Every structure is written in structure tokens, then in C-alpha cells.
């Protein structure tokens, strides 16, 4: 009987771990970790630096991914609109730069300068942060709301519903989420999917 119990436990552990390996990363409602990551200006940036923020639009993005490039101007626009209202953009580059030299810190600095980024563009050195969030691709957005208990994940997914053509966008997922948070309403779509460039690790 004990042997049976033992093997059942093993089976249970195997099954459970198989499940957890599928659902890595945050779900809506989870508390997101803070970090200290290097910005393109050489400073270290943490969420806790933003004492007056109401939350954050954390975007895992990169230099060379065509989808990320397609969204550069829209990310700038989001920061222009929502940083003054307490939801600044925090951009994090998650790729292994040895595998993707186009995403090196030097290349990130050039990109930030060329596009005149008004938000931090951080490098996930050692690639410790993106797996905790569960980011799988660039761009991949996590909208966080500051609560007493920490930064709570409120939205995960895409910026909007058309990566190709900004003028053809019908639903602005991130804007809708932040607007809902600002007006104390519940977010209609808390998770969306979009094609993106897999994070290189």
C-alpha cells in the first residue's frame, strides 16, 4: 500500500510539474516582481523609483523584431499619453545579445537616441526578469497597478489589434486597460494574444 501511495505521489508530482511548466509566468491578478535593470543612460531603474506612479506599462520589446519596430511610435504615444496620468512605459529588452547582436546595449542606445525614447529602455541582463513575468515574445505587454500589496498584473498581451497598420486599429487593448484602471472600472479584455518574435535565450 505504501509503495502504491509512493508511486501515486510521484505520478502526481510529475503531472503537476508538467502543468506548471506549461503555465510559467504571471496571470492577471498576480503580483509582479520589481527589478533593478540597466537603462540605456547607464543608470539602474526599478519600479520602486517611481514613487508617484499609479502603475506601469511594462513592455518587453527589442530593436530588430519587425513587430517591435512596427509598434515603436505607438509605444512612444502611449508614454506621452499615460506617463502624465501615472502609468509610465517601462521598456525591457529581454533577448540574449550573444544570439542577437542587434539587441546589444550599444544598439539599444542608438535606437533610444534615434527614436528619442522618453521612457527607460532597460536590458534584462542575465535574462532573469522576463521568465518571471512569463514574456515569450517581443512586444509583450504587462500593465501593472500599484497596490498596497505590490504591483498587481492587470493586463497581459498585445498593444492593439493591428500590428501592420495603426490607422486600421479597431481595439486599443492597452489604452482600454489603462483607461479602465484610471476610472476605477474593470478591464474588459484582460488578456490578448499577438504574433511576435520569440525571445532569444
Amino acid at each position, binding site marked *: 500500500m505504501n509503495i502504491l501511495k509512493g508511486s501515486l505521489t510521484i505520478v502526481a508530482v510529475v503531472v503537476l510539474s508538467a502543468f506548471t511548466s506549461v503555465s510559467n509566468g504571471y496571470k492577471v491578478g498576480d503580483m509582479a516582481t520589481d527589478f533593478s535593470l540597466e537603462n540605456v543612460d547607464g543608470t539602474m531603474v526599478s519600479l520602486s523609483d517611481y514613487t508617484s506612479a499609479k502603475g506601469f506599462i511594462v513592455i518587453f520589446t527589442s530593436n530588430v523584431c*519587425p513587430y517591435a519596430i512596427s509598434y515603436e511610435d505607438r509605444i512612444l504615444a502611449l508614454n506621452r499619453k499615460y506617463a502624465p496620468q501615472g502609468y509610465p512605459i517601462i521598456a525591457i529588452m529581454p533577448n540574449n545579445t550573444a544570439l*542577437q547582436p542587434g539587441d546589444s546595449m550599444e544598439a539599444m542606445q542608438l535606437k533610444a537616441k534615434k527614436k528619442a525614447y522618453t521612457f527607460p529602455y532597460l536590458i534584462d541582463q542575465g535574462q532573469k526578469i522576463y521568465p518571471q513575468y512569463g514574456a515569450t*515574445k517581443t512586444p509583450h505587454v504587462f500593465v501593472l497597478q500599484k497596490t498596497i500589496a505590490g504591483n498587481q498584473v492587470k493586463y497581459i498581451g498585445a498593444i492593439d*489589434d493591428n500590428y*501592420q497598420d495603426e490607422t486600421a486599429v479597431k481595439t486599443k487593448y492597452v489604452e482600454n486597460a489603462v483607461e479602465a484602471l484610471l476610472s476605477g472600472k474593470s478591464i474588459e479584455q484582460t488578456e490578448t*494574444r*499577438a504574433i511576435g*518574435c*520569440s525571445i532569444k535565450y
Partner: protein
Amino acid sequence: MVVYIYSMRILSLILLVILLSCKNDANENSTVAADLQKESNIELDLTVYDFEGLKPYLKTMTDSVYVVNFWATWCAPCIKEMPYFEAINKKYKNKGVKVTLVSLDFPRKYESHLKPFIKKNKLTSEVVVLNDPDSNSWIPEINPDWSGAIPATLIFSKDNRAFYEQPFTFEELEAELLKFIN
């Protein structure tokens, strides 16, 4: 269903101009240019679908096994694993296996990147293009667990189905395929 057909003529013209502007061995160049011209005169038509149009590629009532790979020319891990899909196609096409390569390249890259890639690598698997920017509406239909990162691959028969959000080696891909054949 939306189907666009793109022609190859512009590219052959560009190739010809590039080749003609080369200043090495004139004889050798003219031969290469002639060969390339011959090759690029073969029309390469792309079949571009929206998700509704792609749906028939994602299910079957036949006894065949289908391998559907989502890729793009800009996706380095996709390009790396492409030869394995081609090898599977060659090795198993007479055993009821059909490989479809679904390109997610942007429309503006069809002439500049996608068509040259297909020709240069002489792809023998069927290539179709999916152009449906509202990807949130169709990604979960392909698989509820797909985050949207590529490469991604679907293997299915009329009874079974598996989805992989990962790159493959040849051995891994073949091992997964054999689960459907045996």
C-alpha cells in the same frame, strides 16, 4: 477568403540590374545573369489567406498527417529549423505526410524577402501566407496555449492533434511526427 497573387517580375528585373552592374569577369557574369534570368522567369505566385482562408489547412478528414509550421523570413530560429521541415517533407511525402509552411511575413516583404527566400532555398513544401493582423482573434483558434511567438508548429491527423511553441531539431520533429504515423 482573401487571395492575392503577387508576381515575380519586379524582382527578376532588380536581380538583372544588380548582376549587370557587377564588374568582374564579364563572361562568367553574363552566364550567371542568363541562368538567373531563366530561373526568375518562372513565375512564383504567393497564395495569401486571411484566417478564414487558412482554416482548411488546419483540419482534415483524410488519412494523411499534416505538419503546419508558422514562420517568417525575419525569424532566425524559424530559418534554422526550415531544412528539417523540408527534410520531413521529402522523406515522408510518399507516406501520407503533408508539410505546409505558413509564412507570417508582412505584405511589404513579399517581393523583397519572401519570394527570394522561397526561390533561393528551392522550398518543396507548400508555402502559403497568412495575412490577418487581428491575431488575437485567431491565435487561440489554432491553439489555446499559443502565446503568439514563432516558430510554432501544428501536427495533426483526423484523430489527433499536437501543438508546439518551440523550435525543432530534425530528430525531435521526426519523433513527434512518428507518434502520428505509428
